[in-house]
């Protein structure tokens, strides 16, 4: 359970780090919190030749509210730091609730938000939250920076659109309207385990507060990446999310996903749970939402 040998660098300048990362002839990995990477290295599932530590690059540690109300989270911001900020300053309550479901305090105090996104375990909370909240990912690489919508960022199990030589420099969550309602439901075998299935929902009501103007529903643990249920979102838009409306989308959820069997749960069980968690998360989001101001 000891990692293989590697070289370690912790440059202070992002330019220098990106230059080292762009080396085509060396197997380079970036490390921030390392809460997914170090176990893989201890198991020797990952054996990089060069490990680039982001911790000395000050600009990657920024956690700030932007003038347009968005929240930007730099690559070295830990999950615990973001959670503390959200609890103290408010906003994005669904993000706070999701982070509380990540691992344990010892993991969250070191694990980073961007690290979890770049690692892209499809049963992890943050990728689904990023998709549900229409987050924008800032990718830094040899050609400069590019912005990728969360919906386009995750490709398949443990894969993203990050090219060799690129790193996820920050994630930006758009402004959170105070009247928006949210739901976060997750089923795991034990507290802190990876989820079997989870659901993230948000609801924005119309000005009268009588119907849902916009609905977001994203599931995780049911496929190779977070699954946004556009059909359900459209079916519910313009309606009050009462019991009848929620019951009507149950078949849509079941049809939209294609979970797989594994040793933790069968595909059928996952589908059944996905339906229940979706309905629960949507009901919570409706309950917590209020008329658009």
């Amino acid at each position, binding site marked *: *359970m*000891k*990692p*293989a*040998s*590697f*070289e*370690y660098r*912790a440059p202070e300048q992002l330019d220098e780090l990106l230059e080292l990362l762009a080396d085509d002839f*060396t197997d380079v990995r970036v*490390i921030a919190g*390392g*809460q997914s990477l*170090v*176990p893989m*290295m*201890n*198991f020797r599932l990952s054996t990089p*030749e*060069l*490990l680039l*530590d982001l*911790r000395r690059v000050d600009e990657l540690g920024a956690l700030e509210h932007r003038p347009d109300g968005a929240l930007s989270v730099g690559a070295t911001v830990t999950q*615990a730091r973001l959670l503390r900020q959200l609890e103290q300053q408010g906003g994005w309550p669904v993000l706070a609730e999701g982070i*509380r479901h990540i*691992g*344990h*305090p*010892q*993991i969250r*105090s*070191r694990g980073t938000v961007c690290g979890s996104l770049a690692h892209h375990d499809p049963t992890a909370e943050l990728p689904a939250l990023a998709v549900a909240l229409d987050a924008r990912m800032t990718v830094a690489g040899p050609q400069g920076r590019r912005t990728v919508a969360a919906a386009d960022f995750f490709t398949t199990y443990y894969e993203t659109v990050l090219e060799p030589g690129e790193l996820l420099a920050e994630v930006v969550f758009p402004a959170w309207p105070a009247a928006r309602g949210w739901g976060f439901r997750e089923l795991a075998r*034990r*507290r*802190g385990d990876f989820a079997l299935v989870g659901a993230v929902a948000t609801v924005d009501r119309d000005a009268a507060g009588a119907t849902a103007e916009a609905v977001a529903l994203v599931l995780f643990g049911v496929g190779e990446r977070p699954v946004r249920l556009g059909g359900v979102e459209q079916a519910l838009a313009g309606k009050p999310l009462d019991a009848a409306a929620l019951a009507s989308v149950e078949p849509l959820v079941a049809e939209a996903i294609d979970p797989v069997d594994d040793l933790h749960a069968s595909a059928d069980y996952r589908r059944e749970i996905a339906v229940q968690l979706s309905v629960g998360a949507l009901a919570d989001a409706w309950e917590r939402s209020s008329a658009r101001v």
Partner: protein
Amino acid sequence: MSEHAVQQVPIRVTVNGRELAAEVEPRLLLSDFIRHHAGLTGTHVGCEHGVCGACTVLVDGAPQRSCLVFAAQADGAEIRTVEGLAEPGAPLHPVQQAFHEEHGMQCGFCTSGFLMTTVALLEETPHPSDEQLVDALSGNLCRCTGYRNIVAAARSAERKLAEAGDE
């Protein structure tokens, strides 16, 4: 790179208030640094892949699994281990005393991890809810006790620390 001499990374850390400077191989885990370089074997190594929590130490005040941190990454950090809770021969730390009185252990292998997790929790949240307490302790595995006495010990420690704070 393997054909070259093994890299040595200079690091400087504070362990239980004592400054330590060392040259470490990049792959040296903080848990092994604490045990083999700092000579503090109270930090136990269980699973070495971040599941059991036995190696939990405080890094700049936050509980972390020392098997999931490279010693090189801890350069500049302030580390607290179980040995830092009380001087040899001195009265036990209130959290240690509580675990002793409530018998919050059996074989003792996991205990230093539980102690550091509990210390971190009560320093940040002096009166945790049941939910917060269980969430904090859930990152540490104990295969002997069934956890009841550990939870009782954490509650007793909460009272002891509150009383000590009032004095």
